[in-house]
């Protein structure tokens, strides 16, 4: 049997509580600062505007393309390589004119006049109103997911679990957002979808640890709460690492083979998975302790129940 982790010796996670809380707080503050100082590099989905991907059979002359577009009247055009030297990304800010949708046609006409072998690969045009709606809906989705999960945890466990689980995951989300702000990676709808998926996914982690804490509270009658939490984390640690490793393997495959479109999506997932482990082990559980979880919270209500589900899942 291959074992990455020796689970016979309990690791005293809670003793490091101060250190880990400090680290968490540090990263969290850094992320908030990055968000405040740099702001998210919102993609065209949210800001509105036009983004075009074109490709040439020869390496593209960016300066020439930029020059001809500027002389056609597109003053605020951004032209850059994308993936390879033959692929070009043209970005135009949102336009007030009524037929903004025609911009991409005019750009293509200009590019074709310059070099007939240009091929249009993709156009995303989003009007300002639609961009704002997508943004609002995204924020609403984030909120709905957070509240939904909290309600679920509160029903399934207890409010202290719900609160600490949610803070731990909000911490993850803020850190992902902070990283995206700091490195100015483009924040698109797909990235948002990734963050929401990771929110659901990393709550799993807290659920598994919480499940075990609940089980051990009943089993380990003489142990103190911090000891119980340490034991629970230690016992589930192997599974935590293996699960995240396998998910990360898939995400890496996406990162390397998924192309530009999935690049930032995979990045968001990677950060989410890394911090998901950290936060559920080292943020959620100390918080639980701080909120004053007690043995009585579980012993009382569980007496009449029987059967597998009632006595809580165990791993």
């Amino acid at each position, binding site marked *: 049997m291959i074992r990455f982790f020796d689970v016979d010796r309990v690791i005293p996670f809670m003793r490091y509580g101060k250190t880990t809380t400090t680290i968490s707080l540090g990263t969290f503050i850094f992320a908030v600062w990055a968000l405040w100082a740099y702001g998210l590099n919102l993609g065209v989905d949210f800001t509105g505007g036009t983004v075009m991907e074109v490709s040439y059979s020869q390496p593209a002359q960016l300066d020439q393309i930029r020059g001809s577009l500027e002389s056609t009247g597109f003053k605020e055009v951004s032209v850059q390589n994308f993936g390879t030297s033959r692929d070009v990304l043209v970005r135009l800010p949102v336009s007030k004119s009524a037929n903004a949708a025609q911009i991409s046609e005019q750009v293509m006409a200009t590019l074709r006049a310059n070099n007939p072998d240009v091929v249009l690969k993709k156009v995303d045009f989003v009007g300002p109103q639609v961009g704002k709606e997508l943004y609002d809906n995204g924020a609403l989705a984030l909120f709905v997911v957070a509240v939904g999960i909290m309600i679920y945890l509160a029903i399934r466990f207890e409010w202290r679990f719900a609160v600490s689980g949610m803070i731990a995951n909000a911490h993850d989300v803020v850190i992902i957002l902070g990283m995206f702000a700091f490195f100015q990676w483009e924040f698109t*709808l797909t990235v948002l979808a990734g963050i929401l998926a990771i929110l659901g996914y990393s709550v799993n982690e807290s659920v598994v640890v919480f*499940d075990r804490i609940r089980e051990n509270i009943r089993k380990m009658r003489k142990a103190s709460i911090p000891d119980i939490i340490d034991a629970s984390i230690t016992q589930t640690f192997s599974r935590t690492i293996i699960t995240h490793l396998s998910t990360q393997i898939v995400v890496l495959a996406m990162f390397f083979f998924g192309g530009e479109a999935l690049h930032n999506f995979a990045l968001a997932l990677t950060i989410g998975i890394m911090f998901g482990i950290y936060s559920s082990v080292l943020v959620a559980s100390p918080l639980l302790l701080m909120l004053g979880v007690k043995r009585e919270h579980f012993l009382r209500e569980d007496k009449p129940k029987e059967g597998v589900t009632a006595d809580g899942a165990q791993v």
Partner: protein
Amino acid sequence: MNRYPLWKYLLIGLLLVVAFLYTLPNFYGEVPAVQVSPLKTTQQADEALLKQAEAAVLAAGVKSDSAFIDGNSVKLRFASADEQIKAKDALQAALGDRNTVALNLLSASPQWLTSIRALPMYLGLDLRGGVHFLLQVDMKAALDKAAIRTQGDIRTELRNGKIRYSRIAREGNQVEVKFSTRDQRDAAIQALSRAYPDLNLTGRDGAEEFSIAVTLKPEAERRIQEFAVKQNIQTLRNRVNELGVAEPVIQQQGVDRVVVQLPGVQDTAKAKDILGRTATLEIRLVDEEGDVNAAAAGQIPFGDELYQSRDGYPILVKKDVVLTGDSITDASPGFDNNNRPAVHINLDGKGARIFKDVTRENVGRRMAILLIEHGQTEVITAPTIQEEIGGGRVQITGMDSPQESSDVALLLRAGALAAPMTIVEERTVGPSMGKENIAKGFNSNKWGFVAVVLFMIFYYRVFGVFSSLALAANGLFLIALLSMLQATLTLPGLAGIALTLGMAIDANVLINERVREELRNGASPQAAIHAGYERAWATILDSNLTTLIAGIALFWLGSGPVRGFAVVLCLGILTSMFSAVTVSRAMVNLTYGRKPRLSKVSI
């Protein structure tokens, strides 16, 4: 204890077979095809059309592999893209005047699969290439237009009732009618409220004037807005039919928006042009008495408007509209007696009557035909009325080329929009990009799967093999479900498949770790397996439910490709719970369940 009853094995086997069958069509690829559908929605694709299409193709020297009726269209498959193009041209020439002829791709899966409704997954535009438009209907314009109609109605009503008024003016969607005496005003309110119950009539007393402020009642406004969207969708449908797109999607979204998806369309400029046009035709009388030169200098006579004719001459046209494009039932390109390009127009009954009256009363005068497009009005032609024109057949000349006359005819035939629309979102994906996206998504899945399988087998040995097979089953179930439901698969959706595979393995890790723990605690192998599966189940349920919450919220609030991701995420969670627990358990039971004295398991 680790035995399933026979029916459970059979059920799992049956489900796997069904899933396999419905996954199959995805592996056959696609063949080029041409699809012919009648332009008029009232017409059905029937055997006669099928025979005509086959004959037309044969006459062009192309042989179709199969031809059949599917829904409201006739579809013909071809062996190569060359033959497909040739056949399309032949069909366009033979049947194009009454039918939409469009290139399409059909699944190459055998007939028996199609007959059990096993179809390949429905690919989103980001995977198959095409255009997605979101159009915003300008509701304010719809209401303004209604106010213009109201204005005309009031004028007619007051005239018929012989009620004298001093002025009718319109400001936005409000109409104001002025009178010199209170009695006239009150008589008008009475007459109008009887004739037009949809109107809000508010009397106002001024110093020397008495007036009525006329607005539409809220429910009438709502009806007009609903109607505007419906009418625009119908018009878009007609226009898209003219474009010849195989499987267009035209749907209302929200209160005032329309989604148009045109898979496979490559000439986006043309599509945008035709869809975005808000061409309306108006027929008005030319003001012969007005001074054109003075008007050009800024002194436009009251009740007139100054426009440019095609040749660049200014022309004074009366504001009163004789007829609008709404009265047009058909328009076709052609030539006049002098062989100049022309458009032949047929008017509906009411339009024909009005046209007859107006031409009779205005013989010798000129009539202007105006095309309003993108907010710009142009006088196409201003012929002199030679005689009374009855029967509703009108010929318009003044086009520059046959191409232009056929464009104008198309726009007129496709009908007028009830209100102008603007494109507020466009997503175009080129065909090569679609193929690339499929390859990328597929590769992510392939390598992700291979790596996870290697890792699981390395770490858990035989149980790793079971977990991997369960994971493969999960993939099979997921693809089968997506194919059956014909849910739209997008690139984020493909990423979602990979992600759910990565996350699905979590359930097996939970089980395997639990079994190991039971073994460490001294349980017998059989008992450890049993306890491992039983006890891991609740945790699996819990942890998947939280992801399901996220998936449902994404589906609810997401749009387009993100929604595709949400569908895959939700379905993947459901299939993974089944396959990770039940399918892997079946394999474990089959392998170990029959050995009562099992002393060791490979985990």
